[in-house]
């Protein structure tokens, strides 16, 4: 008799524990869905960098591409810097992000090199590593000229 009662009790105990477990799992699942980090922004698209007529002759020309940037509920403007240069009959676009740790490189006119202010990374005009810690050259971006507007566009 007692053992029969004990059986019932332990069966009920398991049922209740399972019920509590289910509720907890449900809430945990909801929090998991909600707390999952937001994915990154929109994919790449062609964006205007500058007009071919604005391209300098001595070195790469710096173009600042500004766009609206949704940062969750916050909206801001994000600026990307690219260097546009002539290359043969076409153009070359290099990202200004140093491949070492993500600082922004600048063009040194006298040395004719890209230099990173953070850890001394140095790249040549084509973006190849010349000195310092960067593991690879500056990222080359796809570039094209819009025949209607004579704008140089990069895919970013």
């Amino acid at each position, binding site marked *: 008799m007692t053992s029969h009662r004990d059986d019932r*009790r332990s069966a*009920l*105990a398991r*049922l*209740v*524990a399972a*019920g*509590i477990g289910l*509720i907890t799992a449900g*809430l945990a699942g*909801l*929090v998991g*869905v*909600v*707390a*999952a980090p*937001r994915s990154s922004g929109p994919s790449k698209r062609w964006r205007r960098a500058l007009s071919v007529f604005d391209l300098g002759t001595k070195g790469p020309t710096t173009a600042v591409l*500004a*766009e*609206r940037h949704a940062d*969750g*509920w*916050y*909206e801001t*403007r994000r600026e990307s810097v690219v260097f546009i240069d002539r290359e043969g009959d076409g153009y070359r676009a290099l990202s200004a992000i140093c491949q070492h740790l993500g600082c922004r490189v600048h063009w040194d006119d006298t040395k004719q090199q890209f230099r990173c202010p953070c850890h001394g990374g140095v790249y040549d005009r084509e973006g190849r590593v010349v000195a310092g810690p960067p593991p690879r050259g500056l990222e080359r971006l796809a570039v094209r000229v819009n025949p209607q507007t004579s704008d140089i566009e990069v895919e970013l």
Partner: protein
Amino acid sequence: MSGRLAALLDWLDDRTGFRVINHHLLDEPLPPGTGWWFTLGSVLLFGMGVQIVTGIALALYYAPTPDHAWDSVRFITTVIPAGQFLRGLHHWGASVVVVAAVLHLSRVVFFGSYRKPREANWVVGFILLHIILAFGLTGYLLPWDQRAYWATVVAINISKLTPFLGETVASLLRGGPDIGALTLTRWYAIHVLVLPPVLVGLIAVHLYLMRRQGISGPIRARAGTPRPFFPYQAGRDLVVAIAVGALLAALAWKGAPALEAPADPTSSDYVPRPEWYFLGLFQLLKYFPGRLEVIGALILPGVVMTILALLPWIDRGSSREWRSRRGLLAVFTAGLAGVATLTLLGAMDRPRNASTGWNIRELAGAVLMTADNRCTRCHTADGIAAPIEAGHIARPADWLAAHVADPEMIAPGLRAAPDTNQRDTAAIVAALARMRADAPPAVDAATGHLDVLVNRSCLGCHVIDGVGGKEGPELSTVGRKYDAASIERRIINPVNVKPDAQMPAFGGKLAPDDIRATAAWLASRK
């Protein structure tokens, strides 16, 4: 149970002694006859657990600043997966907690469970009820929409009625001279940093005292052997919690009530209303006008609450039978009925926030915004600025006016200032203000042209539908007085009709077709 798991648990028990604690927490012997009525406390605990979990999830995205609170709540409900459901759970969960608290309290009163030796625990429960209401009050402000803002204005103004200390209490609640950023951060801090630990601490005391004195059990003790809390009473608790949870999920499935327009301290026509569990108090105020208001706002609720707090000392008999407590139960029931009636009356006395059509200035503004890509040059889906959407306008009117007159105020080089004049700017600002709440109606090109024309040429001196200058006579119903031909003559040159007219002649300034259309439109206003 597999041998390894058992071994692990044995090891854990050896090092921590968790089985003794478990046994102490779960195997409390309950008096025979402890039934479904005794699940209400656990339901309350369940509801508060849901509030804590959903509150933490909401806090991952919420930003307590006037500039961003509304945007962040909108982000939660429109972008975050299950965000609308989450906010619904937290919103309706607050109601579940309040209802469960009142039911739990009523159960304690009807069962006479507050009697000696449980007086201290009654007082702890009484304080917990107020902590719960404080959660409701502070949480209501956080979405920072019109409803939140104006309900808080009312709540803070009520606090000013506090005798002698009114302004001090109000300024403590506001955190600054006005209700604004400082109020929002203060209420947020109270809601998420102050109240939760107090709540958890008091619940711990409440449960400790419950265990120390044992639960009161049925009114008339029954024969039989006590049964442990787990799993018997816990099973009942679980069944009721699942039922309440299902109801809560069903309510939350439809989401929380939609966000209203962002808080606008300058709006004069908003009729504020509190959340339903404060509606009784809100209604009570209406019966105590003027200097008597303090009675309805503070004295009466204060007296009722004091009596409630002192209940174990007012009713000190030894029998828990209803027979011996008829008077007290009658008063308590009448009190509950009174609160319910006031709440119901408050709910029915619902002044509609008047929804009127767009006036001519707002219509003109909506037309001007899209004309010549004035706004849409930048404000497009993939443009440098966000599209202008109804319900998503949060900037104050003065900022909008400056930006409309000179878009470059945000950043130089965006675009040259478009040709504008004060009346066009005023119209666009009016349309944007209106778009905080609803989208502009569609109008055809001819009507739109006329709207802009009337706003520019007539509203400077004449009132139409409540907007415009006061120099000239109102034109809202001018068609009752004059026909189109007569109005046209007046517009071309008023002196022709009335020699001492102050109004300038528009004959050479506007195209004849425009004058004719304007006259016809005015004549149609009856």
